[in-house]
């Protein structure tokens, strides 16, 4: 074991929080196994052998976006070929298909559409909920919430309470990218600042909704930027306790506009997940998002402190437009197999991280139950 891992292990054993510098040293260390084993121990204490997944469906309602972030291969400017916006009946159809397929969650994010009024989103929320009352709706990043406040000229608090009243159950953690201004100016200069993202997220939490927190890594950022990012999240979590999962997103370079950025390699991804588990002592869940990591690395990450394998997904567009070569969806049976083959116990969860079902070794995917 390397010195830095030994030091951090000692702190963790004494229940001390590790410092930003500790995290930075871990990133610089090549002690892959020491870091992984410590993360696995920390995770075992928190979550035992259980690995969570959910049965969800993604719905990217539009790819038009007034922002043109350089890391994004999904966005289209108004009038650009390839742009689309689903109308309400298309959205309802997709939601109905998801519901019929047993999805317990609809994961809905889109671009910042240049013309749609806030009323469109309210109507979308209300009609999806009315037609699928038992399906949870996880929708709208802090970036979208901020945008809705601008176009409606309402306070953020009111935007959140209106959406919540009509059916919003939680929010995803997107748009965080790297919170530090220097990196943000390079990769997404038009997007709200890191400070604003945190401010809106705090209001989301205070409004009674949980959210996740993401981190887009493997482009122009340095290790110190990742640590700074996690530090801000840890601070906000101390304040609100509103984050459910931390989700590092592996940058996918295809069709994007960041020169020379290649995306993280496999070892970097495993280390990043493991270090986040050790550093973010106030987060219960660390998620390996297989759409971006690939299924193989996401599964191996379960040995590096990860306890959440995301969901069945279905029809993901954002990562795939940027060249992710993972499948478009996973069967529940395949998720169960991946988790079991990693020596863990699969547990289906809902949007609120409540247990839906613990799968014993004998359980099939439940479709014949």
């Amino acid at each position: 074991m390397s010195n830095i891992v030994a030091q951090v292990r000692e702190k963790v054993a004494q229940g001390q929080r590790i410092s930003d510098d500790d995290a930075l040293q871990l990133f610089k260390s090549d002690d892959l196994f020491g870091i992984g084993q410590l993360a696995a121990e920390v995770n075992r204490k928190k979550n035992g052998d259980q690995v969570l997944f959910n049965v969800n469906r993604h719905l990217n309602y539009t790819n038009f976006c007034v922002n043109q972030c350089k890391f994004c291969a999904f966005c289209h400017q108004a009038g650009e070929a390839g742009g689309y916006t689903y109308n309400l009946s298309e959205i309802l159809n997709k939601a109905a298909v998801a519901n019929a397929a047993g999805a317990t969650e609809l994961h809905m994010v889109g671009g910042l559409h240049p013309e749609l009024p806030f009323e469109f989103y309210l109507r979308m929320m209300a009609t999806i909920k009315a037609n699928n009352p038992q399906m949870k709706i996880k929708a709208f990043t802090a970036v979208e919430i901020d945008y809705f406040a601008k176009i409606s000229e309402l306070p953020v608090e009111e935007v959140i309470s209106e959406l919540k009243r009509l059916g919003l159950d939680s929010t995803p953690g997107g748009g965080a990218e790297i919170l530090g201004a220097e990196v943000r100016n390079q990769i997404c200069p038009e997007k709200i600042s890191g400070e604003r993202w945190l401010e809106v997220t705090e209001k989301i939490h205070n409004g009674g909704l949980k959210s996740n927190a993401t981190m887009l890594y493997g482009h122009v950022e340095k290790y110190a930027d990742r640590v700074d990012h996690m530090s801000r999240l840890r601070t906000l979590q101390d304040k609100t306790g509103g984050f459910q999962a931390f989700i590092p997103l592996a940058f996918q370079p295809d069709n994007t506009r960041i020169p020379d950025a290649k995306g993280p390699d496999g070892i970097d991804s495993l280390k990043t997940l493991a270090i986040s588990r050790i550093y973010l002592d106030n987060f219960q869940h660390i998620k390996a998002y297989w759409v971006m990591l690939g299924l193989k690395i996401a599964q191996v990450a379960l040995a590096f402190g990860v306890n959440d394998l995301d969901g069945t997904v279905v029809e993901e567009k954002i990562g795939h437009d940027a060249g992710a070569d993972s499948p478009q969806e996973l069967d529940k049976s395949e998720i169960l197999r991946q988790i079991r083959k990693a020596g863990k116990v699969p547990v289906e969860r809902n949007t609120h991280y409540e247990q839906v079902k613990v799968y014993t070794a004998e359980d099939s995917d439940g479709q014949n139950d």
Partner: protein
Amino acid sequence: MVRMTSHDQFAAIQSKVEAGQALCREEALFLLTKADLLQLGQLADEQRKVRHPSGQVSFVVDRNVNYSNVCNCKCRFCAFYCDEGDESAYLLEYDEIFAKVQELVEHGGTQLLMQGGVHPTLTIEWFEELFRQLGQRFPTVQIHSLSPAEIIQIAQLSSLTVKQCLQRLQAAGLKSIPGGGAEVLVDEVRKAISPNKIGWRQWADVMEQAHELGMQTTATMMFGSCETDEQIVEHLFRVREIQQRSGGFTAFISWSFQPDNTDLGGETATGCDYLRVLALSRLVLDNIENIQASWVTQGAELAQVALRFGANDLGGTMLEENVVAAAGVSFRMTQQQLIEVARGAGFTPVRRTTGYDVLEIY
């Protein structure tokens, strides 16, 4: 009798490995099925360091040329083969092969990995003439070609013993033999997945005879179809035993069955499965110098992780690959990407020959 805990059992195995003692089958099975993945990986990583203290990770610039897809074997895991009369059946002309090798040379390539189907009619003269002409035209390219199943087919069609066949091919320019077609070296598995292919003893026999003639070879394993954990272990020990007798294996390469478009179908091995098999191969095969990571079947990210789970080599750049691609997996890597993968894992990338001599350090 006191039952050892999993922790004690691992510790006992670890001390054996660290003392340089060979593992037994039971210990290998424990490592494959019960050991903690990271402990297993770390132990394999340490043994890789002992054997390759330089911290170099090697690769070869090569090209696969599949001279024909016509094959008698019709293995159930294969999505590449054709019958002779099929519309998509082909046999490359010499000139087509030369054009492909010319491209390889232009890319700085040094290894030609030529394999076909097990062709129903091609006799030794076709190969002898091809190898002679290749040698004259491309003296810097090593002919690393023809797996044991093909060697046996050529010998039979040409009424030669395996030894005579190998000697003639060697005289014509065949320098070394790839370890393909090993699948799982247990006949029960072979009957299920490749019933028309040579048995494990014939595979071993070709390899041992080649080694005796001074030809180096590699050994492979395709796992994840229908074999048991015990059969994976048996495969590794059989390879180890062949190596003890004849000593000509330069490298061991495991890859996982890819089910798309195959008769067998089903699932592919997971990332954890692959890393376990890979790490175990480093520990069991203490008499084989090089363990390859298979980016062709696992992708660049997991292949990189494999470099910390016992592998020290990234195989070839594979200017052309058809067989795995036919089964639905088409990872592609350039030489520069291989270099970056090795560097990203903290290693010094080196370009090597087929015989593992270093040609260039990056």
